[in-house]
């Protein structure tokens, strides 16, 4: 029934019809409702049930626990600062009021560009932006103006993704590029003690510094380890709760959508680096316990959801290990040595995104060399 209606509506977009060019845009909505009736035309006659849409939606599901906690935490941070009495629902509503518009702007701007490019290039709309579009608001400070979100999204999709050829071709993770753009273009909205708590930029009495920010400026941190782990601390919207990020990580690892090698590599790299700095212990950041390094700031969120982006990460098995470990090491290194950037994970991942093709190159080159060596060996045997 519904199917017949859709087929009728899609007629003007069929091949050879008037609006053929816009077919990708219409198909994107149609395939959202139905897996299409396409059959195999060449190659294997039967196919696995998995497709890219399912893979991407799995990532979104993995993001939801952290997102819900982020929404709640936004309200929680606000109400404990104002001192008003509040319930879970109050906090959640306050957070929703702040965050849902950001998500709407991110999806609106990003998908508009994606659809336009799909129509322009004549390919189907790729599902990758469904994840990127949700990630971008989740890693922004809560008080960032909506137009900045929109601008960052546009920058990320144009420059980080479409300029390189679209989904699957990008060097940098688009979501992190959006954050990096906002970070360098509008630093006052991305750091300091006035952006991490809802309304802090409007109401004088409210302020809140991230733990890493406090450490960098030499202020003592009085959050307990449990608060850091559960996420009841100021920070970017959804990055604060290591607990719920771990739930997402479990979903990604169990479904095989996210690479456990990168995640584990990252944790090992960061732990080792943090431990080494603990031994050195020259300043507050170095003395910060290596275990706490893993649970504060965006490290957990970054290593689980950003570093594992399959397109911008290393693609070979060995490459994934190297890539993950280096992300972890660099993250702690940047945190400790560069107080101007108290959060190192964003820059660490972007930097490793750039080097991922190089890592893969050397891993693959080892295979190429093995093949060359085998050939030389076989020719010497023949002539001998």
């Amino acid at each position, binding site marked *: 029934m519904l199917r017949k209606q859709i087929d009728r509506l899609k007629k003007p977009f069929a091949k050879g019809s008037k609006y053929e060019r816009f077919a990708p845009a219409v198909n994107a909505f149609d395939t959202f409702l139905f*897996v299409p009736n396409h059959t195999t035309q060449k190659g294997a006659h*039967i196919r696995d049930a998995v497709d890219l849409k399912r893979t991407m939606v799995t990532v979104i599901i993995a993001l939801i626990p952290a997102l819900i906690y982020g929404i709640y935490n936004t309200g929680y941070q606000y109400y404990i600062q104002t001192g008003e009495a509040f319930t879970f629902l109050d906090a959640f509503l306050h957070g929703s009021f702040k965050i849902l518009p950001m998500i709407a702007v991110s999806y609106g701007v990003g998908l508009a560009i994606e659809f336009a490019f799909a129509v322009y290039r004549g390919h189907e709309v790729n599902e990758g932006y469904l994840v990127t579009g949700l990630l971008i608001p989740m890693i922004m400070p809560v008080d960032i103006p909506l137009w900045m979100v929109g601008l960052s999204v546009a920058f990320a999709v144009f420059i980080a993704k479409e300029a390189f050829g679209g*989904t699957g071709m990008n060097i940098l993770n688009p979501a992190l590029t959006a954050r990096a753009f906002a970070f360098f273009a509008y630093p006052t909205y991305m750091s300091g003690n006035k952006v991490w708590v809802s309304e802090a930029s409007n109401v004088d009495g409210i302020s809140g510094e991230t733990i890493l920010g406090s450490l960098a400026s030499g202020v003592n941190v009085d959050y307990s380890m449990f608060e850091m782990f559960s996420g009841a601390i100021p920070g970017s919207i959804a990055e604060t709760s290591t607990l719920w990020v771990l739930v997402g990580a479990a979903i990604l690892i169990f479904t095989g959508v996210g690479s456990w090698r990168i995640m584990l590599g990252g944790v090992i790299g960061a732990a080792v680096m943090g431990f080494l700095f603990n031994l050195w212990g020259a300043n507050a950041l170095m003395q910060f316990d290596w275990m706490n390094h893993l649970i504060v700031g965006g490290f957990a969120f970054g290593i689980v959801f950003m570093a594992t982006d399959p397109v911008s990460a290393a693609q070979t098995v060995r490459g994934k290990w190297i890539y993950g470990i280096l992300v972890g090491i660099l993250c702690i290194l940047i945190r400790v040595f560069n107080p101007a950037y108290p959060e190192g994970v964003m820059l660490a991942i972007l930097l490793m995104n750039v080097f991922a093709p190089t890592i893969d190159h050397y891993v693959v080159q080892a295979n190429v060399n093995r093949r060359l060596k085998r050939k030389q060996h076989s020719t010497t045997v023949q002539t001998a």
Partner: protein
Amino acid sequence: MSTDIKIRKGLSLRLKGAPTNTLKTAPPSTQFALKPIDFHGVFPKLVCKEGDAVQAGQPLFYSKYQDSIQFVSPVSGTVKEILRGAKRKILEIVISADKKQQSVTHKLPSLNKITPEQIKEYLLASGNWPFIKQRPYDIVANPNATPKAIFVSALATAPLSAQYDVILEGQQDAFQLGIDMLSKLSPNLHLSIGAKESSQIAQTKNCKVHRIKGPHPAGNVGVQIHHIDPINAGETVWVVGAEDVANIGRFFQTGVFDPTRTLAVAGHPLNTPCYYKSTIGASLEPLLEDVGTENLATLRVINGDVLTGTATSANGYVGYYNNTISVVPEGNRYRMFGWLPFAGSNLHSMSNTSLSWLFPKKQYTPDTNLNGEERALVVTGEMERVFPMDIYPMQLLKACMANDIEKMEQLGIYEVAPEDFALIDYANSSKIEAQAIIREALDLMNKEIG
């Protein structure tokens, strides 16, 4: 004498409709066809025309660029029709069979004194040569080349495929003779069998027997070559199907070209999937009628297994190389919200975004739905899971798409055939047509490097 090779990566799909081990004689076909399309890269030059009377074993066409390779009629009769497609490409040479069969008989010298050159000549003249294929490029072998080895795989791991202990039952003597003859063409003759193979094939002499263990594609000869004696740039190996070895052996017994084909007709829409003794080029209609099925129009009949075969129709003909005829339903249906994780777990998936891993023993009933649409390559690591070679499949595919000859060579294009990428077709979530990409790349390499 046997060596053990263990394959770890791969996927053995469990499908419903596997053939039972009963071997029937196929109901007689009145029509046969030889399809030049079965011989990839061969430009056919016809030596017959419509209305000609031909004997079994009489050439119908030869290869334009290697005119010593003859392609002969599997049956005696009259050339009924030469079916042409776009640009007058020859699709099928249809022959209606005579009641009384007459064959071309070749007079053979004593087999004890036969020289390799003579074997080659007889194989070429009798129409047996196309049974020998070569790697790289997966094409009919070049008779002027000297292969470094010959490989025969008597192990079938593809879903629903015919098992060689059934195929070779009663053909062991011919098989041994075929092996003896081929071993004179190259001293390195390798025969691969299953790890638990106990039939007489395991006792075959004059060759190195390898026992292979593991999931599909362990039976693919390309995978076996890679693990036994990999192909380096500039080297050639020959590959012969196990039943074709027996056919070659029978030719040397009798002097008559033997187009025997033991077929597994399999698939869950069939009533009694089983084995048939048939002939290359025989029409499929009587077979499908005998095996019994409903709604033939909604089914896809495939020459070969469901991963690598060629689609044909219910009134098509048995292909030249395949021992399996698979039948699966066409999947031109919609699935509402079928992309949701864990939806449609009755379909098989390698990914844990489906619950199908909960039922490892379940036999699936697949159809030809693509289960999605083609997308950019995003997910990494899923190709490597089903590719048991020391080759980076995704990197190789990308080099192929970019027509980067140097890179393809470095990454091991000479070692692969399209069939080795069949599981990648199956498993990749971007629905990339890996087999087609590799086929095109091999053609390009063949043209540029030769």
